[in-house]
């Protein structure tokens, strides 16, 4: 089995000209964790994750403190919203380089890439770089486990 056998073929993406606000709307409407960004030719330009958008709400300062367990009430942080100006910026300011695979990629290679780069969704491209699908950890992991069906159970 290859990645294109288990991936989602219906894939949501945004053009690189979109704003952060527009990207956020897609995340909310589709309830997804990763949004591929494509250029005019439909080629994968990068990705924005839910995590990247959320840094506008909760900047990186939390990671500076060794642990925040002792803070029981985040106070004003809970109600601080990004400014209109920040949301109007092009989505490319938050875009990251995509960790992606081609359709023909083997499942275990794809899974290893996800572990190594700590990502939960992999955009899948055709050989010429066009976005053709997205495979999640669940898609790939369950596809791998489905091999086990064909293994005979051990006799008691």
């Amino acid at each position, binding site marked *: 089995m290859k990645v294109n056998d288990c991936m989602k073929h219906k894939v949501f993406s945004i053009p690189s000209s979109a704003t952060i606000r527009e990207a956020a709307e897609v995340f909310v409407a589709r309830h997804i964790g990763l949004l591929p960004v494509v250029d005019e030719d439909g080629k994968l330009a990068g990705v924005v994750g839910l995590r990247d958008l959320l840094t506008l709400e909760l*900047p*990186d*300062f*939390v*990671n*500076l*403190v*060794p*642990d*925040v*367990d*002792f*803070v*029981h*009430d*985040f*106070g*004003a*942080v809970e*109600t*601080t919203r990004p400014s209109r100006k920040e949301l109007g910026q092009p989505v490319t300011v938050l875009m990251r380089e995509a960790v992606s695979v081609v359709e023909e990629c083997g499942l275990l290679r794809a899974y290893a890439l996800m572990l190594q780069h700590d990502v939960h969704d992999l955009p899948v491209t055709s050989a010429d770089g066009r976005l053709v699908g997205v495979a999640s950890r669940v898609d790939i992991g369950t596809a791998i486990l489905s091999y086990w069906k064909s293994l005979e159970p051990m006799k008691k």
Partner: protein
Amino acid sequence: MILAAILSSLIFLVSLWLIFSEKLNRTITAIAGAALIVGLGKLLGFYSEAEALAAVDFNTLGLLLGMMILVALLEPTGFFQCLAVWTGRVSQGRPVRLLVLLGTVTTVLSMFLDNVTTIVLIAPVTILICEILGVSTIPYLIAEALLSNTGGVATLIGDPPNVLIGSSAGFSFIDFLVYSLPVVVVVWLVALLLLRYLFRRELAMRPRNAKAVKRLNPAEALNDPKTARRVLIVLGAAILFFFVHHFLHISPSFVALSAAALALVWVRPDMKKTLERIEWSVLVFFVALFVMVGGLEASGALTWLVGILEGAAGMPPVLFGVLVIWVVAGLSAVVDNVPITIALIPVIQGLGAKGVNITPLWWALAFGAGFGGNGTIIGSTANIVVVSLSEKTRTPITAKLWNKRGLPVMLATCAAASILYALAYPLF
């Protein structure tokens, strides 16, 4: 040996320029400069490897390493976090009170610990408290950097230039408390009042959520009270020994390293992790600078400078001292104050050999190097640290902002220090 002097001055000046322009990491610059100067010295016969080794001030290194080990043990216990959280609670979320309390805690800590370490540990919790309150982090972060630079001047172990000056001039811990601390107390108050004025608009804003800060529990922020207690006991004992080190005829570095050894034996930490917390790049930077400046001295380049300054020392000595404060402060604002101090030490010693009364000049050097670092965003490592931490918040500190807030503080502190210096000159 004019060629040797010119070439080694050139190596030193290019190194300073590389550090200033941030074209090359300062430790890499210093290592390369040291290697070049030793090579040149061997080639032209003015500087040998043995002399290079002798140029390293192991007293300074030992003191820095010992204190770094103590901090490395204290850091993971959450003690600093606990202190910052406590100030947040005591301030009850009132901006001016928070500024004064955080500023005071940072100053007191930086009198006994390295400024950079203090900032690295206090600033993150400051950002957290400001975020919880819903106020801008900028006044607090800038104040912490400036006040820790200022407070560090007060003691022998407060900042690296003082360690260097104390080691070369033979000043004791008490000398610093007698001559430097009173000046710093006044200068510190000037800095704090000026900061209060410069940030009057930000500090007048009411925090959006003062209640959440009152719910913070400092005890919970302290992860490992047992280790914290042990290290603090050792640190306290070390400070007591600093007070009496010259009566006992032991060096500050021996005190610091013995304290580190005692704390290590008592705590028995994971040594690998503890050593990872030591700022080796700082220690290597110092060694390389000692070697470089040793070569510069051996080449005779500094003798020229001594000659020029000897002429200038003909002016009234008070005026000369004040001039030293301002020149050193100006240099420290644009370049790291450590290379400036290391390079000026042999110059002052040279003036001493010519019969100039140099005791007041040592203090002028300490004040200039300490307060000058406040002037620019790159003036001291503490400044660089708060700026890079602020980049992870909603309101990053820009160089332009620093010039509007930090530079006036530098000018005011240097002016205050100059006035006190002139008034107290007969006492030095």
